[in-house]
């Protein structure tokens, strides 16, 4: 028993540990070259992948741009980086690297008497939300059958994102692209609210009483927060890009980087909005659409999505009617059907709980309880991508362009899934984890939102919604 309590105590200490209290970590993130040191290698890899997309084989699983981006990177992002490290991808993301360099006029050092380059305009107030990210993600989702299978499309999109990021950063101040436009950043931010890491201040009062606010305005050693955040009032991970500029700026060493339990930010009321609520439904519905389209037995649905196909690897527009049905499925399920159903459940919740809050308010609040289930649905979707197709990644490591090279002797490793009969069980287990956390988070919301004797009753429609969504996923994997 002593050892059990010892282990619990160890994990208890671990889960509240400030990673910045580790000297080597602190020294690392305090160094001005830190972010560039992790971004530049990534930028080089990205340019290599883009080049491979343009000049390499048109066969997706024989081109490193597809295997590294949509198999390896995607799995690492959704199953490891986001749940455990929040927006850590944004720390190393190469998309804004060029724009940030031009905007700052410096790669590493902060120049004396520094002024930002470019037009440095303020981002329009009415676009101060993630609706553009929602729309951008849906646009990419509309072409996902092309995007994730055709190297040249992946290359065009990646190069296009770098170009747009660079232009936006030369027109608008700081990281407007990352915060308001990046289609990947939207869902990373949402799911980061679930993650087991957080950047916060140690003493909020100290920040409140300190006038200079170097964490926002910058200092001799820092450009200040490029994500338009004030660390002193940070209560959610959604828009903290983990760039550590605030750590470099704070004269009081008042920033901590904590490990914590999963899902903490989801019950925080401040900062929640309908843009984020819709992001939840977009991601939930798209997880279902993708699993049905790409991993389901229904070939005719794949045909609808794969409309721009001319054998063997060409492009042609055929069967636009079918594609319109697919577009209707993607846009209709994400923007109307699933949110509409959830709103009906919210009306039922209002009726049962007899709360004064409006159904819209309940809709917004409780949409966040679906974040764990949604994240887990995406992880479940991603499991077979790696477990089944790992050999393609290894093959393209030796033959990145599909030209017949064999750099590391791994080109001819035979396609052979790893323990594929276990995949449905792994997927169901992951969904169960999502259900567990969704219901846990939702119940905490219910206790806060409803009168005590009505909490469970008012919560029951959301319980039913969560169970129905989970049953749907379990049926897809196991039914």
């Amino acid at each position, binding site marked *: 028993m002593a050892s059990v309590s010892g282990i*619990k105590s160890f*994990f*208890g200490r671990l889960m509240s540990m400030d990673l910045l209290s580790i000297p080597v970590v602190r020294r690392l993130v305090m160094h001005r070259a830190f972010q560039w040191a992790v971004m530049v290698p990534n930028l080089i890899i990205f340019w290599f992948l883009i080049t491979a997309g343009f000049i390499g084989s*048109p*066969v*997706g*699983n*024989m081109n490193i741009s597809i295997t590294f981006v949509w198999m390896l990177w995607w799995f690492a992002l959704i199953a490891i980086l986001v749940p455990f490290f929040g927006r850590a991808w944004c720390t190393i993301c190469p998309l804004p690297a060029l724009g940030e360099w031009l905007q700052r006029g410096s790669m590493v050092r902060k120049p004396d008497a520094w002024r930002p380059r470019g037009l440095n305009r303020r981002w329009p107030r009415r676009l101060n939300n993630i609706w553009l990210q929602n729309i951008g993600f849906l646009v990419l989702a509309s072409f996902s*059958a092309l995007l994730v*299978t*055709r190297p040249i499309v992946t290359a065009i999109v990646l190069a296009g994102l770098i170009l747009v990021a660079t232009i936006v950063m030369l027109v608008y101040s700081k990281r407007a692209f990352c915060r308001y436009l990046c289609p990947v950043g939207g869902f990373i931010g949402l799911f980061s609210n679930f993650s087991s890491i957080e950047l916060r201040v140690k003493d909020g009062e100290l920040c409140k009483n300190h006038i200079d606010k170097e964490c926002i305005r910058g200092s001799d050693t820092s450009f200040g927060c490029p994500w338009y955040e004030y660390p002193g009032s940070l209560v959610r991970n959604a828009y903290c890009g983990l760039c550590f500029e605030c750590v470099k700026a704070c004269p009081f060493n008042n920033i901590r980087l904590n490990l914590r*339990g999963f899902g903490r930010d989801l019950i925080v009321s401040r900062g929640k909005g309908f843009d984020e609520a819709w992001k939840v439904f977009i991601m939930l519905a798209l997880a279902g659409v993708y699993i049905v*389209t*790409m*991993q*389901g*037995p*229904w*070939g005719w649905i*794949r*045909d609808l999505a*794969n409309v721009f*196909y001319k*054998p*063997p*690897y060409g492009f042609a527009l055929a069967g636009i009617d079918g594609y319109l049905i697919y577009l209707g499925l993607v846009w209709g399920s994400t923007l109307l059907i699933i949110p509409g159903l959830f709103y009906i459940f919210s009306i039922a919740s209002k009726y049962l709980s007899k709360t004064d809050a409006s159904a819209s308010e309940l809709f917004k609040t409780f949409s966040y309880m679906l974040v764990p289930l949604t994240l887990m649905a995406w992880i479940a979707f991603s499991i*077979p*991508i790696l477990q*089944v*197709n790992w050999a*393609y990644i290894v093959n393209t490591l030796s033959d990145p362009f599909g030209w017949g090279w064999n750099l590391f002797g791994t080109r001819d490793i035979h*396609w052979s*899934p790893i323990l*594929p*009969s276990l*995949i*449905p*069980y792994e997927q*169901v*287990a992951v*969904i*169960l*984890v999502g*259900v*567990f956390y969704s*219901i*846990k988070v939702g*119940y*905490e919301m219910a*206790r806060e939102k409803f009168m005590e004797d009505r909490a*469970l009753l008012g919560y029951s429609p959301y*319980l039913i919604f969560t*169970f129905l969504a*989970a*049953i749907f996923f*379990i*049926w897809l*994997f*196991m*039914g």
Partner: protein
Amino acid sequence: MARLPSLLLYTIIVFTMIIAVFQASPVYGAGERVVYIDLSQFKFEPGRIVVNRGETVVFKLRSLDVTHGFYIDGYGVDTVVRPGEVVTITITAYQAGKFKIRCSVTCGPLHPFMVGDFVVLDGGLNTPFILSLFALGLVGLLPLIRFRG
């Protein structure tokens, strides 16, 4: 609060053990079933094959366009199907559950997504699916019991 992940872990372990017991139980039911499958970019037709545990399943495979592969998760089946020929594969459906049928030969852009379902029922029931729903109920109730307590 610290107990919740442990309870979740126990639930998943129990769920896995029950599934394992069902999978290891003796095979009953017999007979032979012939299944004709057409393979084309990027689908199997029919895409969903449902058989009973213990049945001998004879797959008659035909490609309608390019060379495809025919692979069934967990059953050790992996064969090449060229256009113009009919390939016959015979297996015994010895384990229940849902298994993906996959194309194992690069056949076009959506090749990694060319999948079908091979569902093996146990006495007419998809036992792993039913057990998964029980597990869902249990996992769903855990946080509520904890909070109510």
